[in-house]
């Protein structure tokens, strides 16, 4: 009979270990030193369309920041939210109430070799702001551009009825396109051609490959290659960062952040974002068509408990815009947790202690924003304590996204839904008009469906003011009007939790997500 002894089994096991060890040199080490490439893992997929005016997707905006140039950037630092850093433009000035003039940088070229000029600015502005473009919602309105000379362009807004000062910050949102590409949007959609530090090479599955652009106007980047990869699972992203397969990550979960902080091979940091998280009430159907019920709900919610759940990923805020936005200030009388006032509002609305109120469907997502399910449970519990009958419905991101917006033909699902609104400019109107202006979408405010003359008037007044100091005051007044009507409750400002390989140096990340790695390099740590 075949004899298998303890000794023979141990010998065989030892042999296995030795052969594995011998083969180890043939297995690629997970961590490679002396890198000249950067691998960025995106939590969100790209749109499949390289035309920057075809979407409002954050992931795609992050990608575009590598490839496309802009007239200027707005770093939005807490101590100077209105700062402007010039890029393809060297300056802007208001010629009159309806005309903004840009002087442009000389010697800039697109990745296809075409020289940059005022003609490209004209083509980009007129194309991007035309009402048919999906991203036109990011800009104050349609415009016409006059080419004064090769390096001077004037943006005119009179024909479209709003002041040109509205472009003071929003000009930073526009990826500048080549005039020849704009002539054929099909070409535009098929390959990205910008003036940015990195040039698009190819798409492989979920990875976009970029290389340093030799003729970048600030000099060729030290990082030679960038891989922009969509990695859907948060655990895979963090493990990839820890193993060296990913170099930089954004939007970590608080627990992941705590783990990465302890790892000496990695660098992790917090940064206040431009995104406020809102609890939107569907104002175009009962019970939240009644402002008293909205007030009651807002006074039932203890935002300090939500912040405790968010941990480092949320910052207190008493306004509808982030502290990084122009015109931020704590809104006087912003709703605070006050059960007594909640009960007063319920009684005044004819629903004492919530009796007679219908069931309220609260829609939230999981897997995209941090902790939505957890703080959704807190909100549900707090409102139910006051007599509401809230049912929390936690959905995956796709299902939630499909129910988010109001449409022209029917009232949106659910009674409450939460959502953030990130934008790449200090301009407050990008948020305020999208969320609260009656003509923002087919049903009123894009998500809450609010249609309110007082809010519209306040928003129109602040947009029409050309003087910065006066406008700041009017932005404050507009947010006060919004807080008195409460179509939504701003819960907190998101804090971005970022992490990268410890040696990565000389790069910056804007508060809305895009990063500048045009001068970045790896140093020994």
């Amino acid at each position, binding site marked *: *009979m*075949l004899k*298998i002894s303890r000794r023979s*089994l141990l010998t*065989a096991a030892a042999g296995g270990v030795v052969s594995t060890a011998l083969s*180890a040199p043939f*297995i*690629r*080490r*997970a*961590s490679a030193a002396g890198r000249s490439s950067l691998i960025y893992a995106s939590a*969100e*997929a*790209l*749109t*499949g*369309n390289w035309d920057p005016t*075809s*979407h409002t*997707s954050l992931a*795609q905006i992050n990608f575009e920041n590598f490839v496309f140039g802009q007239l200027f950037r707005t770093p939005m630092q807490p101590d100077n939210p209105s700062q402007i850093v010039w890029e393809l433009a060297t300056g802007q000035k208001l010629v009159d109430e309806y005309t903004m003039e840009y002087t442009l940088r000389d010697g800039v070229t697109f990745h296809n070799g075409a020289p940059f000029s005022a003609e490209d600015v004209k083509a980009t502005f007129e194309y991007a702001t035309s009402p048919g473009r*999906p991203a036109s919602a990011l800009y104050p309105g349609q415009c016409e551009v006059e080419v004064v000379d090769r390096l001077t362009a004037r943006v005119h807004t009179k024909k479209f009825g709003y002041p040109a000062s509205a472009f003071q910050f929003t000009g930073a949102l526009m990826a500048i396109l080549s005039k020849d590409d704009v002539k054929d*949007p*099909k070409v535009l*959609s*098929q390959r990205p051609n910008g003036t940015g530090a990195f040039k698009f090479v190819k*798409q*492989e*599955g*979920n*990875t*976009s490959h970029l290389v340093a652009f030799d003729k970048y106007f600030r000099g060729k980047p030290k990082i030679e290659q960038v891989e922009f*990869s*969509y*990695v*859907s*699972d948060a*655990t*895979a992203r963090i*493990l*990839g960062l*820890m*193993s*060296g*397969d*990913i170099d930089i990550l954004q939007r970590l979960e608080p627990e992941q952040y705590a783990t990465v902080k302890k790892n000496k091979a990695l660098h992790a940091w917090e940064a206040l974002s431009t995104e406020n998280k809102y609890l939107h009430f569907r104002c175009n159907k009962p019970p939240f068509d009644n402002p008293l019920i909205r007030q009651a709900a807002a006074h039932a919610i203890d935002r300090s408990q939500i912040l405790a759940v968010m941990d480092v990923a949320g910052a207190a805020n008493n306004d509808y815009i982030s502290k990084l936005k122009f015109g931020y200030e704590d809104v006087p009388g912003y709703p605070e947790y006050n059960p007594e006032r909640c009960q007063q509002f319920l009684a005044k609305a004819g629903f004492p202690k919530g009796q007679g109120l219908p069931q309220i469907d609260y829609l939230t997502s999981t*897997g995209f924003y941090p902790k939505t399910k957890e703080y959704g449970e807190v909100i549900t519990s707090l409102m139910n304590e006051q007599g509401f009958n809230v049912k929390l419905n936690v959905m*995956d*991101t*796709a*299902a939630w*996204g*499909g*129910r*988010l*917006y109001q*449409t*022209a033909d029917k009232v949106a699902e659910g009674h409450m839904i939460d959502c953030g609104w990130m934008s790449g400019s200090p301009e407050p109107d990008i948020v305020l008009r999208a969320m609260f202006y009656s003509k923002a*979408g*087919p049903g009123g405010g894009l998500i809450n469906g609010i249609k309110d003359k007082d809010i519209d008037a306040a928003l129109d007044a602040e947009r029409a003011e050309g003087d910065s100091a006066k406008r700041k005051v009017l932005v404050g007044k507009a947010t006060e009007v919004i807080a008195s009507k409460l179509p939504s409750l701003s819960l907190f400002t998101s804090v971005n939790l970022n992490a990268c390989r410890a040696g990565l140096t000389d790069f910056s990340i804007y508060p809305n997500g895009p990063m500048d790695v045009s001068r970045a390099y790896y140093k020994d740590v």
Partner: protein
Amino acid sequence: MVSLISFLVRRILQGALIILLVSFGIFAVLRLVPGDPARLVLGPMASDQVVEVAAREMGLRDPIPVQYVHWLGAALHGDMGQSYIRAINGSQVTGSHDEFAQAGKAHVLDLIGGALPYTLQLAALALLFAAIIAIPLGIAGGMRSGQWPDKLVLYLGSAFVSIPNFWLSVVLALVVTAQFHLIPSIGYQGFSYTILPAFVIAIEMSPIFMRSLSSSVSGARQRSFVSLAEIRGLSRWRIFFGHILRNAAVPVLNLFGVQIGALLGGILIVEFIFNYPGLGLLTVQAVLQRDFPVIQGVAVLSAVLFVVINILVDLVSTWIDPRLDF
């Protein structure tokens, strides 16, 4: 020969019926769950009118059996439809509602064709690892029934079967890849990225093979032809390979056919955790994004694989043991 052909015809017809039933079941269920595919394609802000027009153009307002017949007719001609969310270049797309974005959506068969080689590589390596673990231990346990190798198989099998694959995946990726940088495993940049995911699947699959082989070998050893073979003076190796192992192989092979479903299930989870670009990752992302054509395509492919492998298992079993009738 006649019986072999008759067997093949019978099994292929049975298999075709199974595939038809599975594909119809999945087709119907996907169309009954909440969420309008036309709305998914056009985005949340498209008006209901536009969505309705698109839905009619896509045939989504026809009765489900009619839709299924259309789908089946196209599938038999090699067209399993286009993904709702993936572009031709393979990238997953979202959030753009432009006509050009919609025109560039990938064909389901191309997506499956791109992901399948990675999954086959993973499955093959997982089976190899499972065999390396299960065959020596299973044979040792069967040959020394009631003694320590048998107990080792029992305890090891119990331990392996108790380890959830998602937990083992995360622990291995954390320790082996992230902590000690021994074997890379997140994403795919070469063959070495297959090792850890394959090992996790092997750990999941090996207990059942180990136990089955152990009891089959033990059972074969008790049979009279083994005692007679010793009396006949046959060598130990010949008795082992020609009589014990050959007889023990048939039940293990049949078990393998049944275990294909478990293998596919394991691959789904493991590929997602390791971000391994195979069919599992494709499927999980399709489910999360409601990409119905891709889900349908992968489900049909899984049914086909299941049927084909089981036919092959029956053929091999009969070849090993001629007493089995077609």
